[in-house]
Structures are given as structure tokens and as C-alpha cells.
């Protein structure tokens, strides 16, 4: 028991020093009216009550949920597919791996500006490619219906990191297991189902949880590219929060928003963990 605490002590210390107080303060702020420059003033549940009648709050929640439920499964599938391909023992994989990883290296602002161009309705890469197939591409970031799908596509391009995690997980599967499966007569698909998936499940679970947490907090794209528009279609939750905190200088209201998001994410994560108990296989068990 003591050993355990010794091992985790760096985190506990860091939490107490750098996180506990800010987190506690932000809980406190959520019950106050706080414009950052003057001391906070207690107003009880007024922020939370006002939020329930704030149409932008509900819109932001909807936008963020839409984005999360669309991008997380797609990202999981794509990153797994690519990782499986890159796991083949064929020559040249090293180069391919770098190619798929490259885009995720670009810093947020640079990527966002680049994709503003790519999604240009008239001559951006995507609509240009579509026009070769005879399809007239939509207005993408200028259309309330297509702006979120556009952002999902953008996020998929940055899947290099998730793919790398999957790769590391795939590489740690002992080859003996595949041998044993082959001896038992299992084909490629069966090997995937009975060896790869279970052994990879801790990694997949990790990606599932972290991707979800991350997607709920999507921010940079709205901040740099669309300013929440058009017609609030890309008003993501954390972006609205940021506007409230730093542009309207209403830190109390923003803190209340943050804690509501926290509870949403916690709920979703707990569901994910509960589901994982049956699906995730840990070798150590």
C-alpha cells in the first residue's frame, strides 16, 4: 500500500500544487458573478439556472455531441485500419508510417488555415476532386449543414497520433498467439477476431476514452476558422465557454458551463468503462 502511494506520489503532489486549487476555485466561481477583475460575488445557482434557458448553451451542446458521435467512431475505424495496413511486414512501411503521421504534427493554427483553403467551395482541393467525379461539392464551412462534417474530415486527417498508439499496441501482441491460431486452422479474419481484437482491446479502449474526452472539448477549429458560424453551426461548447470567459469576461458563467461539461464527460466515460469491463481483455488478469 505504501509502495503504491510512493509510486503515484509525483502525480498526487503535482495535483495538489498545480491543479487542486484552480479546480476548486473554478467550482467556486461557478456559483459567483466574476468578471475577472473584481472579486467574485456569490450568486448561488443563478448561473446554472440561466444556462438552462440559454439557447446558445443547448446549441453548443448539440454541436459538440454531433461532432463527437460522428468523429470518434470514424477516427477509431480509420486509425485502426491504417495501423493494420502499416503493421504488415512488407518493405517500405517505415516511409508510409511517416506519411500518415506527418499531418498530425502540424500545429493547430497552421492546420486550420490550410483547411480553410482546402474547403474553399470554388477551387479547394476537396471540391476540385469532387468536380472530377462530376459532383458539385457543397459550401462546406459556409454552409450550416456541412460545416460540422467538414470539421470531422479535418480531424480525421490528424489521426496520425491515434494510429501510432494502435501500432504500438499491435506490435506488442506476441507472435506466438498468431502461430497458435494458425495451427488451430484460423484464417485471417478469425485471427483478427480472436487474437488481434482482444489483445488490442486495452489500446482501443484507451483511444475510445481519450478521443471522446478530446472531441467534447474541440475548440481550435472554431476559434481560428469559423468563429462559431455560420449561424452558430460550429459553435462548439468549449468555444462558447472561451468567448464567455475571455471576450464577455463572465468567468462565473463560463465556470458553470465547464462543470456541466465535466459531468457530461464523466457520465459518458463511466458508461464507456462499464462497457469495457466485459469487452477489454487485460493479459494480467
Amino acid at each position, binding site marked *: 500500500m505504501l509502495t503504491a502511494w510512493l509510486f503515484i506520489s509525483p502525480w498526487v503532489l503535482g495535483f495538489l500544487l498545480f*491543479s487542486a486549487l484552480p479546480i476548486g476555485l473554478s467550482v467556486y466561481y461557478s456559483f459567483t458573478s466574476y468578471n475577472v477583475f473584481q472579486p467574485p460575488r456569490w450568486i448561488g445557482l443563478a448561473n446554472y439556472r440561466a444556462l438552462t434557458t440559454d439557447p446558445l448553451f443547448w446549441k453548443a451542446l448539440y454541436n459538440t455531441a454531433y461532432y463527437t458521435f460522428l468523429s470518434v467512431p470514424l477516427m477509431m475505424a480509420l486509425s485502426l485500419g491504417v495501423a493494420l495496413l502499416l503493421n504488415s511486414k512488407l518493405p517500405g512501411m517505415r516511409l508510409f508510417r511517416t506519411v500518415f503521421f*506527418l499531418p498530425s*504534427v502540424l500545429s493547430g*493554427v497552421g492546420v486550420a488555415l490550410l483547411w480553410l483553403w482546402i474547403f474553399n467551395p470554388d477551387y479547394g482541393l476537396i471540391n476540385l476532386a469532387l468536380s472530377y467525379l462530376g459532383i458539385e461539392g457543397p459550401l462546406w464551412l459556409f454552409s450550416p449543414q456541412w460545416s460540422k462534417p467538414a470539421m470531422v474530415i479535418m480531424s480525421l486527417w490528424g489521426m496520425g497520433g491515434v494510429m501510432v498508439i494502435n501500432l504500438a499496441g499491435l506490435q506488442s501482441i506476441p507472435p506466438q498467439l498468431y502461430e497458435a491460431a494458425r495451427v488451430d486452422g484460423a484464417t485471417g479474419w478469425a485471427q483478427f477476431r480472436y487474437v488481434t481484437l482482444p489483445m488490442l482491446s486495452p489500446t482501443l479502449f484507451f483511444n475510445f476514452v481519450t478521443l471522446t474526452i478530446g472531441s467534447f472539448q474541440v475548440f481550435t477549429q472554431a476559434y481560428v476558422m469559423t468563429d462559431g458560424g455560420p449561424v452558430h453551426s460550429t459553435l462548439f461548447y468549449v468555444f462558447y465557454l472561451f468567448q464567455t470567459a475571455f471576450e464577455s469576461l463572465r468567468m462565473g458563467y463560463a465556470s458553470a458551463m465547464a462543470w456541466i461539461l465535466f459531468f457530461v464527460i464523466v457520465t459518458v466515460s463511466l458508461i464507456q468503462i462499464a462497457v469495457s469491463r466485459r469487452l477489454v481483455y*487485460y493479459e494480467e488478469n
Partner: protein
Amino acid sequence: MGSIKAAKTAYAVTVYALLALGSVAFLMPLLWMLSTALKPDAQLFAYPPEWIPKPPQWRNFLDAIEYFPFWRYLRNSVIVTVLAVFGQVFSASIVAYGFARLRWPGREVVFFLVLATLMIPAQVTMIPQFVIFTWLGWVDTLLPLIVPSFFGGGAFNVFLFRQYYRTIPREYNDAARIDGASEWRIFWQIILPQSKPVIATAAIFAFLWTWNDFMGPVIYLHSPENFTLPIGLRAFQQQTGTEWDLLMAASLIVMLPVIVLFFLLQRYFVQGMALSGLNR
């Protein structure tokens, strides 16, 4: 024999075809970046858009570096990133061990608490954290960007290591414990050496995140002597407009160290697990 070879060829062809297709999609935007970086001003907004710069302005890369104090910012970025990466990987690997390989009451609850810190948007803790660092006198130094990395290395990394550790069979620990080894020795001499894939992964992520971190430097650094590269990139985006060609050139240059690191660390992702020497 023939059919196996045919199957293998078909397999290889399929894999390469899919990868090539994917590569095209993934590389196109980057090629566009390169093309833009090399374009002369007049060609930047030609419609319909042109891919080949005529003539290629290799000068742009030099101009980009001279636009802001590149070398000074680079030095600061390197200091912060190298230290932060070391801190994050080292401390996360230790902390995660406590959550993965040791059994103790309340472990899952505390771990969920660790995870929960990822669920709070940074924007609301930004200001109180800033106040703490002001009180410590660390504002306008590189310390706020480095020191927190040594305290657990971030929940993301702890989670990553934990998941990985849990794929290592228990027998390792048990065998070593029977031999009388302490937990620390088990961690240091047995588990950690087998964790190269996750160490490499965590290092890449930590490097990537710290290298491109932008918010931290903006709010904690107040003197140009301390600025890091992401702040430098901002100089290309003025109120009156963006210097696209220089910005793309600079972005490509800033990308390079991470690419090099990734290329070098790749073999750790592909290293198979050595399970020799263990009787089942």
C-alpha cells in the same frame, strides 16, 4: 506452393494499393503547403489555383527564418520541449506503474480522478493557475512550461502507460517477487525495458504537444528573450493580412524536428515483444 505465393502477392498488392491511395489523400494538403511556401507573391492567389511555383522561391525559407528571432525562439523551444518530454515520460511511467501493477484499495477511484482532470476545459483553470505561478514568481520564465511535467506527466500519459502495463502478463511480477525483488526493482529492471513501444509513443506525443504549445507561452512568457517558436509563427498573421508563403515555409521548418524524431523512434513501434526466458 504456387497458390500461397499468389495469395501473398495479392495481399501485398492490396496493402500497397490502399496505402498509396491513403497517402495521396494525406499528403496532398502538405504538398499544397510546400507549393505555397515556394510561390512568388503574385502566384499565391491565382485562380484557378496553380500547383507548380514559377519560379520556386527558395528564398522564402530564408526570409521566414529572418522574419522573427528564429534561433532564439528555437533555443527556448528546445529547452522547454526536451525537459518537458523527459519529465513527462519519466514520471508518467512511474505513476502509471502504481495504478497498473500494484493492487491497493481505492485504486480505481483515484485513477478515475486522474482521468477526470482531463475532463475539465483548460480555459476555466487557466486564470487560477496563472495566479499560482505569479505567486511563485515564475511568470516570464520557462518554469511554468517545464516543471508541471515532472509531476505525473499528465493524465493522458499516465493512462497510456497504464494500459500498456496491463498487457504484460502477471507472471513477470510474480516470478521476480518470489526471487525477493522489491517493486521498484521489478519496475526498473523488468517492466520498463519491455515498455519501449509505449515510451516511444509517449515521447512522441509529449514532444509534439510541447513543441506546438501555444497558449502556455502566450500567457506565461512576457519577454521576447523567452519566447518559443509557436509565438514566432504568429508574427506572420497580422491584422492587415497573413504572409501565407512565409507562414507555410516557417510551419514546414517548425515541423521538421518532430518528423525527424518520429522517423528515428519508429523502430520502437515495430519492435516485437521479447518473451523469451519465461516458462508458462
